[in-house]
């Protein structure tokens, strides 16, 4: 049972009560104090904190099993390879992919998108072909396509969003045409929290023969994903936003597509044999994993998936929906606050401004009270432009945040108004 694109399932499906205090104990950093106050970490859309299970998996690998993978016959190499490939299967199941070969480990969701841009799109697109994205994309789902357009003469089309921050589906559909070769759309907007109806978007795009990439960097920590049910062709995630380490991400690609693609980078590991006359490339997915990979990172990412599975993304989603509704109510009733992103289907993100106070000033005042939020354009400048602003304050929640923390956020936002009264 998965609902990859729709709202989170109702609370009635929740089995055991959600014990957030117990979950918090899994995250050692949450015990920190900042400026004499207990840390309130609400910058999860930038990066999430790491549970002991992830930290221990990384340390454990380095302490007991460190070796290069896929080529050693010695015991440590066998163990490291088993752990690395085990993580691939873990991520495969997490994303609902049909086979582990469909999971390519990369540095980040950004690299996953660049891989598709350069290894899939660039050799296949010609002048006049079209790539369709949306206004709400993160820069990492804009710039790689702009580069491909410059390289190939393809044209970038952008589907607009409403004042609520929702994709204008009709306009999206109108922009699909015979020249649309690729559609790249985010699952959840990092700046607005909008959850896109990606299954429907995939269906529309496929009707026009376009290949679809979904940027799932923000979705993975918040809702269950099933790429097979979605029918998408590529899906990009990053480890560090889903409680894993930085420097590791994964690309899901439909096997037939990956198999037909040329390599992204050349080097060791991605070859079967090398001579100066002819080099034969390795099979999928190793063809795309040139060089010694981030072995510890991949193992850590696998541990993060295990951690999420242990709690259950449906339960996490239900809890977070309640917390987001509470936060939305608490923040929006403060006089002078303007919310950006009021879509019917939202997750995890509360983007707002406080009167005409610059978000950086607000961010500093919140930080002085131990509250970590992101301030700025969130690497989504077209979203800021859409709303006629340069920046927002963004509070983004995760599975360990509490109602009491939201109360502290709301109280601190009120102090921002006092300083700049």
């Amino acid at each position, binding site marked *: 049972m998965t609902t990859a694109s729709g709202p989170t399932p109702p609370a009635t499906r929740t089995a055991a009560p959600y014990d957030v205090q117990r979950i918090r104990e899994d995250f050692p950093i949450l015990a920190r104090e900042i400026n004499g106050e207990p840390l309130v970490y609400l910058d999860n859309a930038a990066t999430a904190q790491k549970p002991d299970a992830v930290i221990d998996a990384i340390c454990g690998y380095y302490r007991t099993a460190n070796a290069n993978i896929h080529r050693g016959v010695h015991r440590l190499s066998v163990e490291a390879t088993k752990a690395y490939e085990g993580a691939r299967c873990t991520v495969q199941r997490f994303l609902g992919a049909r086979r582990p070969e469909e999971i390519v480990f990369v540095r980040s969701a950004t690299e996953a998108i660049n891989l598709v841009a350069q290894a899939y799109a660039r050799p296949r697109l010609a002048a006049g072909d079209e790539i369709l994205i949306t206004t709400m994309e993160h820069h990492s789902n804009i710039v790689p396509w702009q580069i491909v357009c410059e390289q190939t003469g393809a044209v970038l089309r952008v589907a607009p969003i409403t004042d609520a921050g929702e994709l204008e589906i009709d306009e999206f559909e109108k922009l699909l045409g015979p020249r649309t070769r690729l559609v790249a759309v985010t699952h959840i907007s990092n700046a607005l929290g909008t959850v896109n109806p990606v299954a429907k978007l995939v269906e529309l795009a496929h009707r026009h023969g376009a290949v679809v990439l979904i940027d799932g960097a923000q979705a993975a920590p918040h809702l269950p994903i099933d790429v097979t049910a979605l029918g998408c062709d590529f899906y990009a995630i990053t480890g560090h936003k889903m409680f894993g380490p930085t420097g590791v991400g994964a690309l899901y690609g439909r096997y037939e597509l990956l198999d037909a693609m040329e390599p992204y980078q050349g080097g060791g590991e991605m070859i079967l044999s090398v001579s100066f006359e002819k080099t034969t490339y390795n099979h999928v997915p190793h063809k795309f994993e040139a060089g010694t990979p981030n072995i510890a990172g991949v193992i850590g990412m696998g541990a993060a998936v295990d951690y999420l599975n242990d709690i259950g993304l449906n339960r996490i989603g239900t809890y977070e929906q309640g917390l987001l509704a509470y936060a939305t109510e608490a923040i929006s009733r403060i006089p002078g606050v303007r919310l950006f992103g009021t879509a019917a289907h939202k997750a995890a993100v509360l983007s707002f401004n406080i009167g005409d106070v610059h978000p950086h000033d607000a961010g*500093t005042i919140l930080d002085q009270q131990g509250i970590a939020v992101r*301030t700025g354009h969130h690497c989504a400048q077209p979203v800021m432009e859409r709303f006629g602003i340069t920046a927002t304050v963004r509070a983004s929640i995760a599975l360990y945040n509490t109602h009491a923390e939201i109360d502290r956020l709301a109280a601190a936002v009120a102090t921002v108004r006092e300083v700049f009264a």
Partner: protein
Amino acid sequence: MFDLSDLYQELILDHNRSPRNRRRIEHAGCRAEGYNPLCGDRITVYLSIGGDVIEEAAFEGTGCAISTAAASMMTEAVKGMSVAEATALFERFRAMVTADEDRVEADGASMGKLGAFAGVRRFPARVKCATLAWHTLRAAIAGDHASVTTE
């Protein structure tokens, strides 16, 4: 309760509320644009220089309280200065907001009104807000028409 008075001194809040010299100087002899990619803030600094003296200084743009007040107070401070004096003041201002707290340069007492920004050094993430206008001033003096950034 947290203490923000080090950063948001009354003088800074006042200049944020009512920025001085926030206007375009038509036919300004020198101008430059500054950009802080961290926050997307942009500023344009205009200078009228007669002989070697900055006769008029103004700015346009919006930003946070620190960057707006810095631009406002900078234009007041450099008006009437020689180009060399303004450049030297840029160096002293930058030293003040980036200095270690226990060093002499950190003392804003010798900086007049600009000493209000001495507290910025305790907020490393905000140093670029305080220096954006100054970097742009220096570019305007140098006749550097390319946009400067804080990076």
